[in-house]
């Protein structure tokens, strides 16, 4: 069992997975942020590889990417920062980024480095399923890296079942068909979507991302799925005047209550 499966075998409800952009607010904050998120009770972490052309992200994450790139963050810098991360951190760690930086780094070298550091999975929102299965799946599998795939309210059922076969981690449910800012509450249509996917009885657990920013939205998704992925709200918290620890502690309570 990989680390992500272990997590879900121990805990099926109220999973909180947090996204932050590596190299933001400061280049060398990465390791401290990861350690503090674990210390304050976060279950899993998605470390964002900044990219200047993030098709799937809203303004807050785009802004953090711009700052991180200006700070000098890149995939190789990130890997060197994470070299000893498994000495202090035991929760699952996932890298999230766009396909081009990974291609230029080399897919095999990327997977090999992930394995040696102890990265459990990867989310590449612009890598389509058929490209993954055709070109890269065998490499990911060779190094034991889980590729986590996204679905949206528009994704067809047959495709969701295919995605379910391709991964042994979780399915990332994008909460809506638009990237329009964070909402204070999910609407009926979205709740219906959560219920619909949940009733498909997929083998992988479900986590909902996009639009979770407070206790209310967190509770809403936890009612129907295994938990949530929170990104923009964490990035906003990291920009506050306090210390990293104060900001992270306040942020986690603002979601979990």
């Amino acid at each position: 069992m990989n680390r992500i499966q272990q997590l879900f075998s121990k805990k099926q409800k109220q999973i909180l997975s947090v996204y932050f952009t590596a190299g933001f607010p400061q280049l060398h904050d990465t390791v401290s942020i990861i350690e503090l998120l674990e210390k304050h009770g976060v279950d899993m972490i998605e470390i964002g590889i900044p990219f200047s052309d993030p098709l799937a992200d809203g303004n807050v994450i785009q802004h953090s990417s711009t700052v991180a790139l200006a700070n000098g963050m890149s995939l190789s810098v990130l890997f060197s920062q994470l070299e000893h991360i498994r000495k202090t951190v035991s929760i699952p760690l996932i890298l999230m980024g766009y396909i081009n930086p990974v291609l230029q780094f080399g897919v095999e070298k990327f997977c090999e480095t992930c394995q040696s550091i102890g990265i459990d999975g990867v989310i590449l929102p612009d890598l389509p399923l058929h490209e993954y299965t055709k070109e890269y799946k065998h490499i990911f599998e060779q190094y034991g890296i889980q590729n986590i795939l996204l679905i949206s309210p528009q994704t067809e059922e047959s495709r969701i079942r295919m995605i379910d076969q391709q991964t042994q981690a979780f399915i990332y449910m994008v909460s809506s068909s638009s990237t329009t800012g964070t909402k204070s509450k999910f609407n009926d249509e979205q709740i219906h979507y959560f219920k619909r996917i949940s009733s498909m009885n997929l083998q992988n657990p479900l986590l909902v991302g996009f639009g979770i920013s407070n206790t209310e939205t967190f509770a809403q998704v936890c009612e129907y799925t295994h938990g949530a992925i929170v990104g923009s709200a964490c990035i906003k918290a990291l920009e506050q005047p306090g210390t990293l620890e104060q900001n992270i502690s306040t942020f986690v309570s603002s979601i979990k209550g």
Partner: protein
Amino acid sequence: MSHNYFKTYPNKDGFFNEYGGAFIPPVLESEMKKITDAYFTISKSHDFINELRSIRKHYQGRPTPVYYCNRLSQKYGGRIYLKREDLNHTGAHKLNHCMGEALLAKYLGKKKLIAETGAGQHGVALATAAAYFGLECEIHMGEVDIAKEHPNVVRMKILGATVVPVSHGLKTLKEAVDSAFEAYLKDPINSIYCIGSVVGPHPFPMMVRDFQRVVGIEAREQYMEMTGELPDSVVACVGGGSNAMGIFSAFLDDEEVAIYGVEPGGRSMNLGDHAATMSFGTPGIIHGFKCYTLQDENGEPSPVYSVASGLDYPGVGPEHSMLKDIKRVNYDVINDTECIDAFYELSRLEGIIPALESSHAVAYALKLAQKYPQSSILVNLSGRGDKDIDFIMDTFGLPK
């Protein structure tokens, strides 16, 4: 090339050999599938073809002529012909794909057309198509280009479009594409991103090419009628590559015709000083498709520059990337100085003020004419230069 070229390329996933495809988040994936299905349905429908033909004839003023440049040929040698896309309604080839894209949008029940623009020609053409079909239109444009292409900004506003200034990064075409994508992602159900060239995720490179093929089909027939033979070479400028694909597509099977795509060489060959993607780039993924890109070792798109706003892009159409690899098309560069010289030569010898983008193709034709004085050269004059005149006067002034 094969008889089935247009059926073989792209394949069903939108690939031209290794280039193209659709590297996009799942929210867009389902929308692109809908657009592809709709395109295949209506592009084969009698009503759609009829409507587009009627629009081209009565509204756009097609066919545009092929013109023999007498004085230019006398001075430089060769026989230089122009396919006059500058005479297409709105002054460039861009309306050819915009009317098609807007017709498709209407069929899909979209309310709003969104796009980027560099030189403003695609923006003006899309705003025109939106007015024609009664749709909303939102155009994203870098602040640098807004200042440079002022007349086109005014035209878009007169036509009723909203112009969104883009102020991040270099404030030019690449950033305009980022911004337009972002706006589209906010509401992909009610809006459609009508991309301005043969770039972006599948089906856009295929669709825009198909809509531009009219340029080549007309030009080949007109040229044959005028001369009784095929030209020795065909030349077009390549930004994203739509005007070039339009004219090249009719000659790919004619092995005796040499085809040249002209990229912007800018102020020098140093990275950041040009936008010559195929001459200096490497394969990568940008804006949802795979192509030659100018990028750094981390896979970040590099800064680009050209005197012509419409050529100022770090990627290029996937079909061009393939045509380079299989060596069917030769890609070469023309720098800013050569471009400006050609701009004035065509203006003063023929009374045609070309767009700065098209001036790159003209400049290359002048080089070919000098090198091969016995040869015939067909240039796609993709647009007229009215939009550029204030910028030229302020930056370069009149020739001595």
